[in-house]
């Protein structure tokens, strides 16, 4: 068993510290593209600190499910993050689960968040839960199929094995099946992180909210945990996308230089991916709720084509 404590601690710290920065970066760039000055990129850290210090108001109708959810969401996102190769090709917890466990953990967090949306007896929360579960349900097959495509090529569902196989001589940059699987995963990423064609993270109107509607009743340190957990989930999914499809620069040995280079590459890949997300968010309008299935079925078809082409172009 390779449970190396330093690697685990380092990756946990990286997930905790990098996630708010990524959210801040996306927010800032979005503002810039819209000719606004925008908030500082480290604003999310200050927000989290402030939420942590604030008093909490909990709905009188809410039960223990409401109080457990922030922990579940935070812990599932963090544990899922430990299974993804970030700086090193070998993820610290890859033995405890691969792609399937990652999807399962994120689904567990979503399950509890949707319950917490229903718990305070507000119609808005229920609306959010209903939409979130619907969208995730139709995003899931596309995501799984895209993951299967890479997993079948690598012969493993273990994310580190997938990355190692992609790094090997068999990996061709922009292999058609990989390109299409990447496109499918990118659409799923937009849906899973509540980005614009699917959901608007900046909306203040309860009726159009999906993700935010479930959080309406949260405040104080619970809100801090949830916001942090959600940004970690975003980081995890983006790192997954970046490292599975572009496994360049991942540290192979344990020298400081390799780690530094790996970190640098990770940050660069994340920046490019964040730029793509910002570009999509700025150039598109939010889709009507019943148009979202069209987008996600496009992702599903892309993933199917990716799968078919794995053995057509071999």
């Amino acid at each position, binding site marked *: 068993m390779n449970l190396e404590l330093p690697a685990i601690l380092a990756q946990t710290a990286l997930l*905790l510290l990098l996630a708010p920065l990524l959210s801040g970066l996306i927010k800032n760039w979005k503002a810039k593209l819209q000719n606004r000055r925008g908030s500082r990129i480290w604003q999310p850290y200050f927000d989290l*600190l402030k939420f942590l210090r604030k008093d909490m108001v909990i709905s009188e109708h809410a039960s223990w499910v409401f109080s457990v959810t922030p922990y579940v969401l935070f812990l599932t996102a963090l544990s899922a993050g*430990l299974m993804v190769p970030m700086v090193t090709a070998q993820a610290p917890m890859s033995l405890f689960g691969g792609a399937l466990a990652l999807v*399962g953990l994120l689904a567990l967090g979503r399950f509890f968040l949707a319950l917490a949306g*229903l718990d305070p*007896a507000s119609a808005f929360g229920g609306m959010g839960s209903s939409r979130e579960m619907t969208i995730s*349900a139709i995003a*899931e097959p596309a995501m799984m199929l895209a993951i*299967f495509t890479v997993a079948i090529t690598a012969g493993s569902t273990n994310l580190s094995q997938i990355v190692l196989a992609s790094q090997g001589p068999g990996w061709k940059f922009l292999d058609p099946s990989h390109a299409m699987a990447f496109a499918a995963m990118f659409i799923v990423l937009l849906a899973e992180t509540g980005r614009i064609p699917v959901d608007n993270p900046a909306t203040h109107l309860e009726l159009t909210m999906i993700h935010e509607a479930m959080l309406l009743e949260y405040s*104080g340190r619970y809100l801090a945990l949830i916001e942090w957990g959600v940004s970690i989930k975003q980081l995890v999914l983006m790192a997954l996308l970046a490292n599975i499809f572009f496994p360049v620069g991942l540290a192979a040995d344990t020298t400081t230089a390799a780690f530094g280079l790996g970190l640098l590459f990770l940050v660069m890949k994340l920046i490019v991916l964040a730029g793509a997300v910002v570009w999509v968010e700025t150039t598109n309008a939010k889709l009507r709720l019943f148009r979202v299935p069209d987008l996600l079925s496009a992702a599903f078809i892309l993933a199917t084509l990716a799968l078919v082409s794995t053995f057509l172009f071999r």
Partner: protein
Amino acid sequence: MNLQPATLLVASLCGYGIGAVAGLLFMRRERLANALSFGVASLSALSGLLAALLFLSSGAGTPAPQFELLPSLIPSIKFTVRLDGLGAFFLLIVSMLGFALSIYSLGYAKGYFGRKNVGALGAFFNALLLATTLMFVADNIWLFLITWELMALTAYCLVSFEHEQPETRDAGVLYFIMSHIDAGCILLGFLLLYQASGDYSFASLHDIGAQMSPGKRDAAFLLFLLGFGIKAGIVPFHIWLPVAHPVAPSNVSALMSGVIIKTGIYGLTRVCFDFLGTPPLWWGVTVLTVGTISAVLGVLYALMEHDLKRLLAYHSIENIGIILMGLGAALIFLHTGHPLLATLGLIAGMYHTINHASFKGLLFLGAGAVLHATHTRNMEEMGGLVKRMPQTAFFFLVGAVAISALPPLNGFVSEWLTYQALLQGFGTTESLIRLIFPLSGAMLALTGALAAACFVKAFGITFLAQPRSEHARHAHEVAPSMRFGMAVLTVACVLLGLFPTAFIRLLDPLTQQLTGQQLSAQVSLADGLVLASLTEKAGTVSTLGIVLMFVCLLPIPFGLWLVFAQNSKTRRGLTWACGQPGLTPQMEYTATGFSKPIRMIFKALFRPRRDVQREYDFSPHFAKKLRFESHVEEVFVRRIYRPLRILILLVSRRIRALQAGSIHAYLLYIFVTLLLLLLFAL
């Protein structure tokens, strides 16, 4: 004392018999009948559980105990019982569920005191357990068919237990018809097998498919698939299931969904892996396709339900589909000559079978507790029960997480194994048929995500928020025995989830018997902490490890809390209702509303019908009264079963003309028949 599995098995069978007789004898004294019949049933189930565990843990090399239960007068028909790996595994399922259910029933049946015949309920309950247990260990075609029929009849009596309701009577009749169609198919299938073997014992049927002509073998397979498939509730033969399961008493619903439909899986496994020999490719493809369709359609129809027990019944169809996906993949691998992968698929299917028994049993018991407390099955009249029945709510939540295939509970483990079998199947063949594996996998993902949505609805609308009716407002926690029954199954869900490698060791005798392989050593890594899919490289998962990770990471939020949030206070406040005072239950989201987006997205399938009537003075937007009705009818009922029923009634009306009541006409019929028979004989 040295306990033998065979002794324990006989003790268990006798116990059920005593329980059934006791229930009937003390029918007039319902308290005594209740305590005796269900008490004895729980002890018998415990004995059966021990028998199964003892046999399964003794390793694959142990010979299966075989003995004659009763002396038989006819030489070829023997009442032989044999506890082999497959039988012992299903004995484990029926006994585990039987134990939890019997204890639960001690409290649940009290609701019938003074109203219904509790003695009869106990007697039939014991008889059903007896028939099912005996069926799993039967070693002779006749004993199998007799117990199969006995099981169908006792289950019919239990389904129709609350026969005052016309709905229940109809459901009972539908169940009766369907179970006799399946019994007929199975009888024909066994006749085909008997033709080849010339002997009624199961031992003589082993690999009999090799001696049969391909046509007959295929016919036998189709007959068995139809017969056992009806019992298991595969689409499109599932229509009896969402009708019959909800109307039965909840302890019986749990038994029906947990065990009775699994008898179909048992039969199919026995026939396909033990009797029919190496399968052609299309068998596996058929089973896999049928499983995939059943899984997706089952969960989609479940989402449309707001009757809690009907919802659970539709989920049984879904889970049977998932089990068949594992078995279908295993059949394909047997054809392509990959015994290790076939074993993996078989393990996935079997693991999901016991998982489904535990969490679906648990959920039906939870639904029964809710029904007991609120006197309704309609979710729209529930709500807020988490505060009124906290323990039931907790147990139900565990079941909901497990059935939604979320880590770290048992549903996740078996679906993980199914995914692994499907993914590795891609490399086994070069033909286009291999695309079926990842596509089935994608449909499994869709099923899992929809199941999660459905159980957010089932738990959220039932237990969370404000109570939506007076009944729900005055609900109270159920009797301790009922909670204990649920707790047993909750523990089973957790143990099966956290210790998969230990459990797969129990499956060794089964896989050794059916595919000649044992995987327990191969799938276990790091002293059993980690479950691997054949090799470490192909993928690993550790549910216990995930829980350990949660525990180790938990200090982070608590630490943050200690450092930053020491001075912050928590207070209770009103839920945001757009500034309006007084949030009423009417403002809450409903179960129908919750599944509306899914209904809209899949409207081509559902064809929802809705009636809205508004009464207004000035404008329809300011209605004084609003009446909303929404229906979803199953496509199979509309397209197949209703026309079929009309056709059957029409034909029988025509045939009735033959039975004119005139003795002359009847004499003519007899004469014509005699002539025809004579011609035939010449």
